[in-house]
């Protein structure tokens, strides 16, 4: 059976620089995603500090963001998040691929990130992108009861 679905344009996923006026959307997503979210002030500082702050939009809808710091040929993913309304669509992978591209073009040779062991979906995504666990930071994260370790992962660019 042929249907119109085939003829529809693919959704357009746009990656662009995060602007001051995006911070509201970012904070809403952040709070919905994390038990211990970053504050609005942290995001504003990231913008001011000159970190690479990117926003993903699907057909003009805000769907996620990523923040990358680059220095001395090392890039660090500080935050990457897909809005809860838009999960399970492969958008996190596109965001990560985009951040990897940005890191590469900024001259970084390695990309690092920390991830909670209690977030297996994220860990699997990073592994599938070729990232490897290189260590553990003990008690790195705030947690419901006490602290949680961070898995440290690296990708050679």
């Amino acid at each position, binding site marked *: *059976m042929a249907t119109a679905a085939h003829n529809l*344009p693919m*959704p357009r996923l746009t990656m*662009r620089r995060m602007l001051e006026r995006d911070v509201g959307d970012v904070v809403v997503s952040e709070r919905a995603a994390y038990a211990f979210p970053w504050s609005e002030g942290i995001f504003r500082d990231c913008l001011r500090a000159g970190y690479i702050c990117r926003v993903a939009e699907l*057909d003009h809808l805000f769907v996620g963001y990523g923040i990358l710091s680059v220095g001395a040929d090392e890039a660090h993913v500080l935050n990457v998040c897909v809005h809860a309304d838009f*999960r*399970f669509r492969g958008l996190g992978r596109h965001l990560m691929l985009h951040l990897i591209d940005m890191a590469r073009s900024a001259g970084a040779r390695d990309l690092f990130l920390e991830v909670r062991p209690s977030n297996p979906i994220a860990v699997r995504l990073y592994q599938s992108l070729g990232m490897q666990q290189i260590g553990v930071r003990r008690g790195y994260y705030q947690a419901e009861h006490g602290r949680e370790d961070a898995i440290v992962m690296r990708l050679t660019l």
Partner: protein
Amino acid sequence: MVERGLRSQYLQALGIDEWARRVQPEVIVQPEVLVQPEVVVSDDWASLQHAVATCQKCALHSCRTQTVFGVGDRQAEWMVIGEAPGAEEDARGEPFVGAAGQLLNAMLSAIGLARESVFIANILKCRPPGNRDPSPAEIAECLPYLHQQIMQVRPRLILAFGRVAAQSLLGTDQPLGALRGSVHAAPPLNTPVVVTYHPAYLLRTPAEKRKAWEDLKFARRIHAELR
């Protein structure tokens, strides 16, 4: 090489979920621009309702009592999509009323969802006479309305009930049995879709209810993972 259907059965028996490849969005990286045009998103729900109510894009408009737009929470996390209005839906202007609607409500409530908390719509907004299957042309004319609804409700997960809903939504001609047990992606927003049997079919074939229950539990698990 194990036949696909058989492989699905083995995987299911082993408790392994199959995953379907998603439709990949086209990715555009914007140049470093500082000023962006403001995107004004107007509330065009009412105009969409009006367009549906007055639609004459196919011949079904001449034999309908009224259009059946859809009901429920416009901010719902779950969207339920069926085939087309039947006689009772056509008379009342609401989808999934009557015996099939009762069963739908029971199925939703089995996974903790109240009918009012989801958004319910059909592929077709008008009743095909004699409850015949919608024609491909009718589906092609009507589907853009559903896409608009999906754009505006922005559900996190879509439950497609029955072959016609599943195939139309996903643009495939795979049989329902092959589409069950996987997460698919529906245009226009790549919304995750889980498919199951239509309640009207389950009323005729109660032995399949057990499979529908498996599908609903699968959907509930996927929804839980979205958090």
